[in-house]
């Protein structure tokens, strides 16, 4: 059968990209997960993976062409019946993504379609009015203009549509920092961890078995994410930020998670993220520990429903067993969607993260 390979959604705040180069030519065999093209976006050059197995029969879009999300980039011959999937942007009326039966040859865009509903996808060429209007980065705003526009659009949508509630709690993380110092002193430098890796793992584990924080709000209803992919907010030098996902965060041992985290930050700053990483996060962690602030009041990135913030780990007087002692403390915060959860459940979620950090060997 003939299948269409379309430009996948690349996160909640991007609706077009410019095809830079192809890694494949007609006749090439491709496997699910192969990087087949590079697309320039507001978030840098993105490696775009393919989500089906087959043979490239035709390249539709030439390098240098600007195309909207959902545009057909290439045609493939795949095995099985002809059931080409709708592009990400046309899924509004479609049921929740269901894995197709094996061998049906369906173009599976589910992993990247996950974030698509938050996007404004031009149904027609771009002369169509953009509605509702999104504010754009103001003159003099920090960072690349395209990226600032993308952040402005996503955050404006979030503040317009998501009834946020915020919670925070200050946690004694001395057990975690002690464990971390001991670990880092006992392993080669390449296996050292950052505190943020512990936070990532704690957030991921807290999402397990708890509904309402790791998932998506689309078409008026909440959908729990099929797996926990924690996105990590990465500040770019010179301004701007991206929040790519560490896939299956909860399943990775800390050292492997740290390797992925370090590689992800490096690629984010070099502008070489993969499309799936940008669209996958089911929840985001934003850590401003390096910026020496006590707390963050984070804004949800639609279509997600929660974001965890972490300030700096600081030494503070703390009462332990009736005595004031110096301890390492951290203020954790949660921005969550009131259409999905309430403060009481949010408090339980933060309490889970706190409990995990209190027992670093559980991470």
């Amino acid at each position: 059968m003939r299948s269409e390979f379309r430009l996948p959604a690349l996160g909640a705040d991007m609706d077009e990209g410019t095809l830079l180069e192809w890694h494949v030519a007609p006749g090439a065999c491709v496997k699910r997960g192969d990087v087949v093209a590079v697309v320039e976006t507001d978030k840098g050059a993105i490696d775009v993976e393919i989500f089906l197995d087959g043979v490239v029969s035709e390249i539709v879009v030439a390098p240098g062409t600007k195309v909207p999300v959902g545009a057909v980039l290439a045609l493939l011959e795949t095995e099985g019946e002809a059931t080409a999937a709708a592009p990400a942007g046309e899924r509004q009326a479609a049921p929740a993504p269901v894995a197709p039966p094996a061998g049906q040859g369906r173009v599976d865009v589910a992993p990247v379609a996950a974030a698509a509903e938050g996007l404004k996808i031009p149904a027609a060429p771009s002369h169509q009015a953009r509605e509702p209007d999104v504010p754009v980065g103001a003159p003099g705003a920090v960072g690349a203009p395209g990226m600032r526009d993308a952040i402005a659009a996503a955050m404006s949508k979030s503040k317009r549509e998501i009834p946020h509630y915020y919670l925070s709690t200050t946690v004694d993380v001395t057990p975690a920092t002690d464990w971390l110092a001991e670990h880092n002193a006992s392993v080669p430098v390449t296996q050292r961890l950052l505190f943020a890796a512990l936070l990532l793992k704690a957030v991921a584990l807290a999402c397990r078995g708890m509904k309402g924080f790791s998932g998506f709000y689309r078409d008026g209803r909440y959908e729990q994410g099929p797996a926990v992919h924690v996105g990590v907010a990465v500040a770019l030098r010179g301004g701007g930020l991206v929040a790519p996902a560490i896939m299956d965060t909860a399943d990775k041992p800390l050292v492997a998670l740290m390797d992925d985290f370090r590689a992800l930050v490096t690629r984010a700053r070099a502008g070489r993220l993969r499309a799936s990483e940008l669209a996958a996060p089911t929840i985001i962690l934003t850590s401003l520990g390096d910026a020496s602030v006590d707390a963050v009041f984070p804004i949800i990135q639609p279509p997600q429903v929660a974001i965890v913030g972490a300030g700096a780990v600081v030494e503070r007087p703390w009462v332990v067993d009736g005595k004031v002692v110096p301890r390492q403390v951290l203020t954790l915060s949660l921005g969550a969607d009131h259409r999905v959860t309430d403060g009481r459940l949010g408090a339980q979620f933060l309490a889970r993260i706190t409990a995990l950090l209190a027992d670093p060997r559980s991470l």
Partner: protein
Amino acid sequence: MNREELARRVLELVTGIAPDVDAASVIPGIDFRDQFDFDSMDTLNLAIALHRELGVEVPEADYGQLASVDKCVAYLGPRLP
């Protein structure tokens, strides 16, 4: 390796970690953090690079002594293998 060579190597490693930083603009006496938002991930990457490229394993407790080119040179000089 003399002082100038060591400073040049450190600068190479730092701009390898932060490719968007112009090596010519880096001021040796000012902390990386204050010049171009060097963060804890960058510092860890610098420690890894120093281990790989210069054979010096910097304990985490000494990361503060890697804060600028001048500080790196002072710290690494006596520790080079």
